[in-house]
């Protein structure tokens, strides 16, 4: 696994993609989840009882960045899009969890979809942690399968 990661990230472009995807997810997620406020001042705040939620956002962003960048490498290498779908699905599920909460997204969803929106919003809020854990599980699986597949295909190509 280390060898595969070493090969992929020896190319600086993939490190940049990794960092880019990480921040592309991490920044919106910590704003949605009210860890980072940009108005009226730029304030970062984390309370003891939200530490777990914050840690899961870090992990989710990190694993998403790895899964997507590895799959971009894979697509370039073997022109196959087989596993990128799973990583995007994992990312979307994780990003959706807790995104509604009591923020403006929930307000928009509830105002647009009424009771159905309210049920969906409360479900995503209530099961925020399990949903994020599930999506992290999906992403770990994607990373594992991609690594295995890359090392096998690389060997074949050699």
């Amino acid at each position: 696994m280390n060898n595969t990661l070493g090969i992929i990230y020896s190319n600086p472009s993939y490190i940049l993609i990794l960092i880019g995807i990480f921040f592309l997810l991490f920044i919106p997620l910590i704003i949605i989840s009210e860890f980072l406020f940009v108005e009226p001042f730029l304030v970062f705040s984390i309370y003891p009882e939200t530490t777990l939620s914050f840690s899961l956002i870090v992990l989710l962003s990190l694993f998403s960045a790895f899964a997507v960048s590895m799959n971009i490498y894979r697509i370039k290498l073997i022109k196959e899009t087989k596993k990128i779908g799973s990583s995007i699905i994992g990312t979307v599920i994780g990003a959706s969890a807790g995104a509604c909460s009591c923020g403006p997204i929930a307000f928009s969803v509830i105002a647009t979809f009424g009771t159905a929106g309210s049920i969906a919003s409360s479900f995503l809020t209530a099961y925020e942690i399990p949903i994020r854990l599930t999506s992290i599980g999906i992403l770990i699986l994607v990373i594992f399968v991609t690594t295995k597949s890359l090392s096998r295909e690389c060997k074949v190509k050699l």
Partner: protein
Amino acid sequence: MVDAKKIGVAGAAIVLVTLVAVFATSYMSDFETPRTSNTGEETQAIQLKGAPVLGSKTAPLTIVEVGDYQCHMCKLWFKETRPLIIENYVETGKANLVFIDMPFLGRDSTPASEATYCANDQGKYWEYHSTLFEYQQEIDDGWANASRLQAIALNLGLDMEQFDKCMITDDHRAQVNANMQMAKKQFGANSTPTFVIVSPTGEAQKIIGAHPYSTFVSVLDPML
């Protein structure tokens, strides 16, 4: 035949783009009016519409909290930031606190708001308000159903006959609806908690979200 996996990828991409679009539009609308100035109408309206005030009514600043009793970020703010504001601004007479209901998260939100006004009829608005946040659980999981609202009233020593009558006859539905309208139209709130700090000159500063105490200090002190 179209590849099912391609459809999955396309579907996931559409969901991702939709999420980003909803996020962007929701938050951009917040940033359009972070600061507002007025002529003190907000303070007047709050007093006129009968929302209970915590602290001195003559305090120079009024902190208006727009919230929903089922909002977990409101609970977080209630537990982490509010006690410091009460201690350093409300109890010292620098500011008073007003809660404006915006019950939008679930079916139990509006009855919970109404119950606080029924408690207010017996002089226990803030006690009921605090109890709701202390016992808050998941949205609509029954923690704020009719029997639990009664139990809270009973624990606070309210006259149950009066409380029940108040709840059954929806005595304060109009007040809660008026608060909801005030929250949306007057304060431009589209999420909870939203705070509006009103100064004696009528200058208003909006704070969106469960900000830490340091934000309030930075906003309140220059307005004093």
